[in-house]
């Protein structure tokens, strides 16, 4: 029982970190609080659904994030960039509007009914792990979470573009002065962040049923993860996603009445302890 709860917490934590790291990156570079991030997660799942019908789930897992990445670049060019001089509150309202538009579009294209994606045949079995039957697909989701984090970390730490991303997240003007086209860096990062939302959505899809409102819970939990982690910090987000995954998993069993407010209680407790989050620094 305990083992299963920890395991399920890790699965949810993995999805959260994929989704929340996208949110954190977009905030880190654009300083945009993106309320549409959960809707982008949901859109990724629906695009994955259609791709899995016409091709198969493996293509869906690959192509849905790619498509979302392109949508992200467009989002940056069409919305975030023109609004960059505006005050944060009106940008926040615009992203809230985007959330509503995306949900309506999805209802128009895919209908209101709930849809589902089959678990890929290769991962449909379960194996014994610490004496518990463990679905392979869930195990693979944890692997995906770990893999994405390692890739993002290596990209930021060792690549040239990663260096520009880190620089631009603290001092965009000086970074540009050195000859970095920071607008391009921003578009890339919003693309990557949106692709991560889509990846989390399509990876979550075989474990739940798709509905246009499915982004709401993930959005709230991702915000909690990003705020607890320290705004814009990926390392902090990683730790807080793992924590929140566990809190959610145990909460639904032992404190079912409180499970909706648990993330906030956790956020308040941690922010009292460390007001600027687990990690104070950026990206």
């Amino acid at each position, binding site marked *: 029982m305990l083992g299963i709860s920890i395991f399920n917490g890790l699965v949810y934590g993995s999805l959260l970190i994929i989704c929340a790291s996208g949110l954190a990156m977009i905030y880190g570079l654009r300083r945009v609080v993106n309320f549409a991030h959960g809707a982008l997660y949901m859109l990724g799942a629906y695009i994955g659904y259609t791709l899995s019908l016409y091709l198969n789930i493996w293509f869906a897992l690959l192509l849905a994030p790619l498509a979302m990445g392109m949508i992200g670049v467009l989002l940056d060019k069409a919305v975030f960039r023109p609004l960059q001089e505006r005050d944060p509150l009106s940008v926040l309202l615009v992203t809230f509007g985007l959330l509503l538009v995306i949900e309506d579009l999805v209802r128009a294209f895919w209908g209101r009914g709930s849809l589902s994606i089959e678990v890929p045949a290769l991962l449909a079995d379960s194996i014994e792990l610490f004496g518990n039957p463990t679905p392979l697909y869930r195990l693979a989701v944890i692997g995906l979470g770990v893999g994405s984090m390692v890739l993002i970390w290596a990209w930021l730490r060792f690549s040239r573009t990663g*260096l520009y991303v880190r*620089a631009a997240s603290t*001092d965009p003007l000086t970074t540009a*002065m*050195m*000859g*970095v086209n*920071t607008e391009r860096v921003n578009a890339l990062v919003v693309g990557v962040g949106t692709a991560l939302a889509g990846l989390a959505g399509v990876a979550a899809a075989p474990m739940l049923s798709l509905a246009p409102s499915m982004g709401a819970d993930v959005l709230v939990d991702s915000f909690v993860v990003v705020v607890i982690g320290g705004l814009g910090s990926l390392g902090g987000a990683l730790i807080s996603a793992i924590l929140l995954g566990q809190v959610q998993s145990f909460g639904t069993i032992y404190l079912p009445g409180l499970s909706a407010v648990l993330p906030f209680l956790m956020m308040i407790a941690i922010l009292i302890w460390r007001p600027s989050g687990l990690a104070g620094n950026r990206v």
Partner: protein
Amino acid sequence: MNTLLSFDKVNAYYGNAHILHDFSIDVKEGESLALIGRNGVGKTTFVNALLGQAKVRSGSIRLGRKESARWHPYMPAKEGVMVVPQGRCIIANLSVEENLLLGAATGRKGYWTVPKIYGLFPILRERAHTPGTALSGGQQQMLAIGRALMGNPTLMILDEPTEGLAPVIVDQLGDIIRQVNEQGTTILLIEQNLHLVARVSRRYLAVEKGSVIAEGIVDPEQIEQLQQFVVV
């Protein structure tokens, strides 16, 4: 001689505050020019106009063969103009070496590489992996200069590089700036420290109330004649 950078009757604003008034300047290839003037006369605004951070409502800015009234902050570097900004602006979450690598973002090839910068400022090699902002003020200034050199500039603009530094370090930096100029990099030094101007520059322009009001040759023997442009 070729003109590398020229401002022709530039009027620049922050919002509605009119800061530069018919500001004109020509920087010739290979020279070492000083731009002097008191606090608040518009020296940094000149840099900001070049970087597109102050709005140019009339006049034109020409860099090499390109002319425009609206420059983006990343464009001058691509044309070979690197800025050592006032206050140094070392990036806090990057190491010393990463700050240097950032300076090479344009990919312009030339004499300067990381080992060459370490040769010029050995202390930076010792502290290569510490955060850039953990350095002392003088070391941060070396890093800011090294970072600009990494872009292999044809023109390096230094905005009050010696602000707040001890006289020994000022002399040391002055010698290095002169050495860089002798190797062929054009220098535009924005300064109020006339001692440094005497050491580094051969020509000066004096700025007052957002316009260039005087220019001439720097005579190190009679540098005190320029006092009138910098004392309050």
